[in-house]
């Protein structure tokens, strides 16, 4: 036998120069073809025409301190001192000033929870338990009782109320939605049809209707002497609404799970409830993380509908602040501020969702 020829791989060479650099990228990704070029040019035109004006209004000619008289001297600029004057009301509504610290404590606790979560300092069960306790803590720190002065719900408001309603709605509706989704797959026809009935009914009705029903009609159906206050009724309505959608999202994740996962679990002697807890849900929830984050975002935006049933949430406060006779004519500033706040919160959520998706070794394939 002759000696085999030894294979020597060619050394790597650098890519040719024209395949790199910003100009190359522009040419091949932005100005490739007449349609994309036209699109890019119109975009540039729009930016050139609008951005300087916006900067003029929002920064250069804006008024940052003083009262409404100051603002009126510079009518072409934004009046940010209006936001400063109304800041407290926008944040907490007419919550008593002596108790305002509770809103700050609540916000701090939430911030700590968020930071420890995104920096992975809280993990597994502790993380889940901490978030599940948050609704109870939120209602306690804001509403009082158990050692804190009670604060009447009619004075809860502003961003604090929006965040409370959204957080509690999301946190409670996720486990509820999971239970509903699992119920849909249950072997018992009664459980199954109850869950399907609930999900389809709620999904077939606009949120406003549900808020109305829980605020106005629910008291009529409750047994006499059994009183749930308005805030809790509205909160319940939001939870039910959100749960129905969460259930549909989770159902998608459950259906996508290969049958082999159940078979492997069964062949290892892991019973059905443990299979759900250890194998099915962790995978299903991972895969529905992006739509679930989407649900959180729309839940937060949906809270602005509670204005219909008489609660003054963040948007409600923006509206009422811009009706203040002393500050008439500055509602643009108020709504711009509202938009910036809503956008920052929703965009952060969305980025965090994308980050989770990217950093999860299980979702990398």
């Amino acid at each position: 036998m002759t000696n085999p020829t030894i294979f020597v791989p060619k050394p790597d060479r650098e890519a040719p120069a024209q395949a790199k650099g910003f100009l190359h990228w522009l040419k091949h990704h932005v100005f490739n073809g007449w349609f994309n070029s036209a699109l890019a040019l119109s975009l540039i035109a729009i930016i050139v025409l609008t951005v300087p004006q916006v900067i003029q209004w929002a920064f250069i000619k804006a008024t940052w301190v003083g009262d409404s008289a100051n603002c009126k001297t510079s009518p072409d600029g934004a009046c940010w001192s209006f936001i400063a004057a109304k800041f407290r009301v926008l944040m907490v509504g007419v919550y008593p000033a002596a108790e305002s610290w509770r809103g700050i404590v609540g916000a701090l606790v939430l911030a700590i929870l968020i930071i420890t979560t995104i920096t992975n300092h809280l993990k597994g069960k502790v993380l889940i338990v901490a978030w599940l306790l948050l609704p109870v803590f939120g209602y306690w720190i804001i509403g009082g009782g158990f050692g804190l002065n009670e604060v009447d719900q009619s004075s809860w408001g502003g961003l604090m109320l929006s965040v409370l309603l959204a957080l509690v709605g999301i946190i409670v509706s996720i486990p509820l939605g999971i239970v509903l989704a699992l119920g849909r797959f249950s072997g018992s026809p009664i459980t199954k049809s109850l869950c399907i009935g609930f999900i389809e009914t709620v999904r077939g009705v606009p949120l406003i209707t549900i808020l109305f029903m829980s605020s106005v009609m629910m008291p009529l159906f409750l047994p006499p002497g059994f009183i749930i206050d308005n805030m809790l009724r509205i909160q319940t309505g939001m939870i039910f609404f959100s749960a129905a959608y969460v259930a549909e999202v989770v159902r998608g994740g459950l259906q996508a799970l290969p049958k082999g996962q159940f078979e492997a679990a069964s062949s290892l002697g892991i019973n059905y409830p443990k299979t759900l807890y250890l194998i099915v849900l962790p995978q299903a929830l991972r895969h529905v993380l992006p739509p679930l984050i989407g649900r959180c975002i729309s839940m937060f935006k949906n809270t602005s509908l509670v204005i219909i049933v008489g609660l003054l949430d963040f948007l409600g406060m923006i509206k009422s602040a811009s009706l203040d006779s002393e500050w008439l004519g500055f509602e643009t500033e108020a709504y711009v501020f509202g938009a910036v706040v809503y956008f920052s919160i929703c965009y952060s959520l969305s980025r965090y969702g994308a980050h989770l998706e990217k950093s999860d070794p299980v979702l990398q394939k």
Partner: protein
Amino acid sequence: MTENTLNSEVKNSDTIDNDATNNKEITIEFKNVNKWYGDFHALKDINLKVHKGERIVICGPSGSGKSTLIRCINHLEEIQEGRIYIDQQELAGSEKQIDNVCREVGMVFQQFNLFPHMTILENLCLAPVWANKLPQIEAEKIALKHLHRVGIGDQADKYPGQLSGGQQQRVAIARALCMSPKILLFDEPTSALDPEMIKEVLDVMVELAESGITMICVTHEMGFAQSVADRVIFMDVGEIIEEKAPYEFFNNPEMDRTQKFLEQILSN
């Protein structure tokens, strides 16, 4: 593989066959088992006795009921008629009784079916900890032992998606071993693998076969059947058509159906 290598190993396995069938107790018994999927008759009057420590290879054309048959042994499929006994206990009754019987049976699937959201070590420890209530530390010790046994002790902290198919299948085997089963079922364990990975999995299976565990293996790896099996079972259209020691099976198949199948499979 060639006919030559097949024949050279035949004598060896033939003697093992006699041992196993004559002296040892029966581990699995099928008595007149029938199974339907809806109206489709998938298993027809199956009678089968498997002795302790026996290595059985099941082969047959696609759709012949091989998977159905072995999946009945760990109750992944329910039967409508007949009885199945494992270690003299019938595979019937309450869920708990069935679970207890199935505890003796481990299974390795064609698609590995590892849990992708857990590391390799977590995959292996899951059942010992949650189903057998073993302390985590002990479970990990056992898991690492089996991981080393299948030759991937250094991959314990990776996720299944980060391993090659052959490595994943070896993890799946180790995972089944962690429950110390008396019987191991394999359903085409190498069919989803690239050719160069088949051998590493077969090597592990050969090593297992030598350890004396009862093995039932659906496979088209005829070299494995020749060298390891005590008995080869040929199925078609839901029936066991022929069962023989490998040498007899490959050299003197009785039924025309078997001959045709062997011609097809050995020609490529």
